[in-house]
């Protein structure tokens, strides 16, 4: 049992930190522009595909550096030439714009790379088990994923709270006009934040591509869960996004690892049902079976009991 617990925790950490990389960019963009970027997961997919193409030419490590930069530049351009124009028409227009962008990117990916699964590999230098415990290997690449994500969090936190740029960004979030009056170029800051946010999503794609497979549906699989995390953590809160990501990652991982479900619960309560009961499917439901929808359940609970999210500030 201990082995399952240890590995479930590690798996949860890997997933959680990966989700954080996506959620951090999304929540930053939201707190700054008040817009939920529906195309965020599509930038994650772009990161994976760019890195795949680069890795064919020059290997994994060049892709790790170049692909997020490319995605970031693309994101900044989307903000500069798309979102900024739409901005004048209000939030709904911005929302619809990013929604359409998501479709556009998905179709473009299929157009350029085709619809089949891509053979995007992790670097050979990390092709060894980091450690073996209870007869199960923990791949070094997963350790690398954890390392990168933690570094990103520390870096982001440091820049936002300790550096001059961070102070200006924070000020621009709450008092954009004052910051502009002080002589700072607020639109440039917005563009930069959007670029960095999408670059983070791209980086997540680069390191997730080899393990979670690179295929045209990858944005769809991750897209909705990232929104859930941002809402659970509290819109605009970076620490909230971290806590929510880890919570969701670990919750899913533990649920899958567990072996309990309705039959055990009913047995505990001393109730039994006939196999031909019309709701038989419900009475035989097990926790692993519903693991992937647990985050949505958590979302509903959070919205009921803490509508602003775990660390979010309620808007007056």
């Amino acid at each position: 049992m201990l082995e399952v617990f240890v590995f479930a925790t590690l798996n949860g950490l890997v997933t959680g930190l990966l989700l954080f990389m996506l959620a951090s960019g999304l929540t930053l963009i939201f707190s700054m522009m008040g817009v939920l970027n529906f195309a965020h997961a599509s930038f994650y997919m772009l990161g994976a595909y760019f890195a795949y193409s680069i890795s064919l030419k020059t290997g994994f490590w060049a892709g790790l550096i170049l692909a997020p930069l490319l995605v970031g530049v693309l994101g900044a351009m989307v903000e500069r030439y798309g979102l900024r124009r739409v901005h004048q028409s209000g939030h709904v227009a911005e929302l619809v714009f990013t929604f359409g962008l998501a479709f556009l990117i998905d179709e473009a990916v299929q157009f350029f790379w085709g619809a089949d699964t891509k053979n995007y590999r992790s670097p050979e230098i990390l092709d060894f088990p980091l450690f073996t415990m209870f007869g199960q290997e923990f791949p070094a690449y997963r350790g690398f994923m954890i390392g990168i994500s933690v570094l990103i969090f520390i870096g982001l936190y440091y820049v936002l709270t300790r550096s001059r740029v961070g102070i200006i960004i924070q000020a621009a979030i709450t008092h954009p006009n004052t910051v502009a009056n002080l002589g700072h170029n607020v639109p440039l800051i917005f563009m930069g934040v959007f670029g960095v946010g999408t670059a983070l999503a791209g980086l997540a794609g680069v390191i997730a591509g080899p393990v979670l497979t690179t295929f045209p549906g990858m944005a769809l699989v991750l897209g909705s869960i990232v929104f859930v995390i941002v809402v659970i953590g509290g819109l605009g809160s970076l620490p909230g996004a971290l806590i929510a990501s880890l919570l969701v990652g670990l919750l899913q991982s533990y649920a899958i690892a567990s072996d309990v479900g309705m039959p055990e619960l009913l047995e505990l309560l001393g109730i039994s049902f006939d196999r031909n009961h019309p709701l038989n499917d419900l009475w035989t439901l097990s926790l692993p079976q519903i693991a992937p929808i647990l985050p949505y359940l958590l979302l509903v609970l959070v919205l009921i009991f803490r509508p602003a999210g775990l660390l979010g500030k309620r808007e007056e």
Partner: protein
Amino acid sequence: MINMMMLLLDLRTKTKFFSLSILLVLSSFFTATGNAQEPVRIAFMDPLTGTFASIGNTGLKQLQFAADHLFNEKGGILGGRMIEIVPFDNKQSPTETQIQFRRMVGEEIQIVFQGNSSAVANTLNSTISKHNRRNADQEVLQINYSAVDPILTEDQCSFWHFRFDSHAVMKLDVLTDFIAMNEEIKSVYVIGQDYSFGQVVSDTSIRMLNEKRPDIEIAGNEFHPIGQVKDFTPYVTKIVSSGADAVITGNFGADMVSLARSIIDAGLDVPIYTFYAAYDGITATLGADGKNKIRLVHNESANPYPTEKRKDYVRAFKAANPTYDLTQARIHNALMMVVRAMEETQSTDPYDVATALEDMRFTTLNGDEIWMRGDDHQLFQEIHVSVHTDENIEFDADNSGYGLYSEYRVPAEDTIIESSCKMRRPRR
């Protein structure tokens, strides 16, 4: 303002005149070539965009190639008529399938090839039954080349539906025989997508293993939501700690690749028995890591191909479509049998074709005889269990050097199983 109106009016009459002249030119063109007979039109309805697009597009390429290479380039069928394949994109959605079906009927196409997802095949089956009852002069024939839910040739069987793939229970019978022969396997873990086909795979494989090898322990029986799992590692952790010596799964697409990758990454060295772990990028992605671990139960299309005729067909296909693979021999088998039925009856009427298809025995490019049973419209053909490897691979998949090598072959006559079908036949 008035000037503008005049200008617009002028433009409109001009465009009208222009389109009229185009029409005239076109119609004269058609009358000029009108002596050539009109083509036999066949619909291909599968996902051509969206998440499952790759499977649909590969199928379309194969049907198109079969029509051109086997018939059109040799002067057509029925004394000089060409076969025209008309694609319809149903996005693998039952709702979209009904819309596309209406379109197809509107274009007066009476034969439809469809294969992906049993849910879609079921929808099409019931839509066609209803449509044919009401439109006796405009019937439609369903050629199912790949949907393997047994129900389509059992309780839901229809005169207007023919299945050219072996259904899930037939394949599992072969697969469990193969597993039962391996004395080293003492426990098995079954994991699959939580929907009709995944459930059939789980229930049937457990039942059959219990009969054939009561000593094999079922170490786990897991379902996960289809297309929702980001990372299979937590599932693999459970498989490892259960101590299973083998894994059975009916997963397809990304769910298949991710599962196999996670198993390999965790260093778990057990055979993985699958239905769909090859082609469309999957073989290339698994590459060396999957060698001798991944096995598939499937109809013919594995090395070594038995006849030169069959090899030439693959070579010709690869020459015409270098980035695609010939993944489903049943597509050209189905087309060849349909054409044979048309030639025999000298008719393209679905009723005549269906009647001629019943109990047809047909020799494939492989030199095997396959049989379409008249009672339930289920085709019987050889079934293979093949391994993912790069040894003795004459024809690889995804141009990766890796491909399927057949380890176990069951001839058509040994795959025959009973059916509960009670078919209602239309009266003529």
